[in-house]
């Protein structure tokens, strides 16, 4: 792992802290999701019904991006959005409440886990692959027109990089020099389809050349390298130099969605050994800036935050079925 001199010890501990917080949240959702789905897994049953896409293993991407963004910057994410939302500062309690389908949730229980919208921090995501990319262009345009140095970060998977929306977005952002940072999370799989069967080039970073923008691939899920690449892309965008594309070779630690038996997956045995959290923990321990006690404390603090959010979600009221038709249009309008 390349050590970035610009990162202070505090910055590095913060990257790890963010990764731990995200993992703690995902583990809590995993627990709650499966808690009442037995006997026999029923996707529609339980406190948290529906599809559930968790991002364990992809924490370094979120932490590396989040470290460079501040209030006012935008992010659009995918169907696998929690890690990015947390790193971008989405209110964890409201996010948990949305996942539990509560009236206190980000979308008052209407959206669900794939459709999280937090206007306070300009966060959104989409359940339709690659379709979260184009809106980031518009947010960037708005920032540009307003004369700010705000940026929009658009995140998608390597599977999404084969869709029209990806290519159209890169071209348009490059053409108009929009302050966008495109980040591709290459976790090797688009559900069951390996990248080798879906993508004609070894790295999506090379595709940036077709649009005349910088493209970087970060190997090994290395959080500090991600941090460095995103830092440069964000600097360019803020300086009016236009968009960049970063692809991170990350890791899908668990199934595509919960309930995925992953029968198609030949790489499973080596997967736990590639978990980025113990790897980075060891790295910081070896560097002498972390000890076991401090790491345990990080975990405890994360647990406290997460469990409070989960408890808030669980104790929040369910939406009133009589209100199901609300919010199709702004107040007063009806179809």
């Amino acid at each position, binding site marked *: 792992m390349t050590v970035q001199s610009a990162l202070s010890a505090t910055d590095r501990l913060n990257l790890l802290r963010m990764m731990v917080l995200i993992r703690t949240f995902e583990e809590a959702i995993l627990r709650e999701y499966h808690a009442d789905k037995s006997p026999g897994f029923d996707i529609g049953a339980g406190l948290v019904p529906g599809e559930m896409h968790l991002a364990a293993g992809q924490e370094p991407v979120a932490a590396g991006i989040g470290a460079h963004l501040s209030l006012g910057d935008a992010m659009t994410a995918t169907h696998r959005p929690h890690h990015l939302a947390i790193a971008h500062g989405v209110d964890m309690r409201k996010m948990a409440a949305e996942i539990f389908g509560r009236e206190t949730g980000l979308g008052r*229980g*209407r959206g669900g886990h*794939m459709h999280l919208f937090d206007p306070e921090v300009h966060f959104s995501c989409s359940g339709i692959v690659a379709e979260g990319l184009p809106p980031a262009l518009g947010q960037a345009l708005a920032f540009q027109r307003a004369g700010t140095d705000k940026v929009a970060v658009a995140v998608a998977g390597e599977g999404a990089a084969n869709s029209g929306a990806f290519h159209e977005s890169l071209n348009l952002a490059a053409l108009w020099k929009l302050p966008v940072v495109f980040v591709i999370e290459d976790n090797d799989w688009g*559900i069951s*389809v390996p990248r080798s069967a879906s993508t004609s080039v070894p790295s999506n970073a090379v595709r940036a050349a077709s649009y005349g923008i910088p493209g970087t691939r970060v190997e090994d899920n290395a959080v500090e390298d991600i941090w460095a690449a995103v830092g440069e892309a964000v600097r360019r965008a803020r300086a009016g130099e236009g968009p960049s594309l970063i692809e991170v070779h990350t890791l899908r630690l668990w199934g595509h969605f919960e309930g995925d038996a992953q029968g*198609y997956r030949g790489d499973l045995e080596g997967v736990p050994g590639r978990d980025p959290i113990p790897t980075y923990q060891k790295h910081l321990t070896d560097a002498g800036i972390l000890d076991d006690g401090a790491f345990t404390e990080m975990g405890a603090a994360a647990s406290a935050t997460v469990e409070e959010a989960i408890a808030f979600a669980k104790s929040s009221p369910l939406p009133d079925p009589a209100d*199901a038709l609300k919010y199709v249009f702004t107040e007063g309008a009806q179809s």
Partner: protein
Amino acid sequence: MSTAPTTQIQLPLEPEAGRRKLSTAKAMVEAIAQQMHTDEKVFVMGEDVGAYGGIFSSTTGLLDEFGPERVIDTPISETAFIGLGIGAAVEGMRPVVELMFADFFGVCMDQIYNHMAKIHYESGGNVRVPMVLMSAAGGGYSDGAQHSQCLWGTFAHLPGMKVVVPSNPYDAKGLMTAAIRSDDPVIYLFHKGIMGLGWMKKNPRSIGAVPTDAYEVPIGKARVAREGKDVSIVTLSLSVHHSLDVAEKLASEGIDVEVIDLRTVVPLDREAIVASVGKTRRLVVVDEDYQSFGLSGEVIATAAEALPGGLKHVSRVAVPDVPIPYARDLEYSVLPTPARIEAAVRQAVAG
């Protein structure tokens, strides 16, 4: 008043179902496999149709049986692979292409409605597009607004594609066989709730008797799922089962409900609708698609045109023009649940 013609055109006879039972998913796969065996031009293509076997098990086992040349996993490039299916069909192949969820049609709609659906017409009938586009529809399991829609009305509104929507394993196999053999593009929409999947609450009728040999359920022919004389429920897909449950319940109170399973949206079996409503004079349309500008209005218009002044009751139970909500109670308050259907039937016979 017009009623069903007394001399029906004899369509190919559907065989007796027999005793062997299959889930809807397995029945679909069997139809595809049989057509792949008889016609080497048939191939299957889509996201996760190979090793995964289709997210809703619509292609399970086909990769093992036919290999990766005929069961092809695609990138997430729907415009490209659906367009590719069209091109292959134009050249005489018979693609069965899966779009994982009907909700995703937006990213590839141009290929579907401006190309797949129009080429035959634009070519003055000279070019055929014998392609099946299958896709999962429907909600009821909290998958949210982008993964729970039915949308058959949208496909049906755009001319040039046949739209079939089975409700049970027997029809699923017969309609798939007919769809693959058809020289027209066919949209084949299966509701997730009728597939008989192990990880979803099972409708008991999602497993049923299916003949072993290949057979067709003719496209464009509705089925009287239950005969009755008081009120007609015209419906399709999962709502057929809810309607049958309601009919059985109300039978004990002396309310005699007829249930028509449309099976095909395009072409719509208007004769069957008119025959049933002509008899009962009361019509309840049950549709899990959005209410306005869709199938339910079309069914009512069909009845009204054929039976001017002859209807004692018309109503519909559909999704009230709202995106499908995530939270369970919200979702079930907009879906056409048995409770809503029952209330509509009671109202129909009260008037």
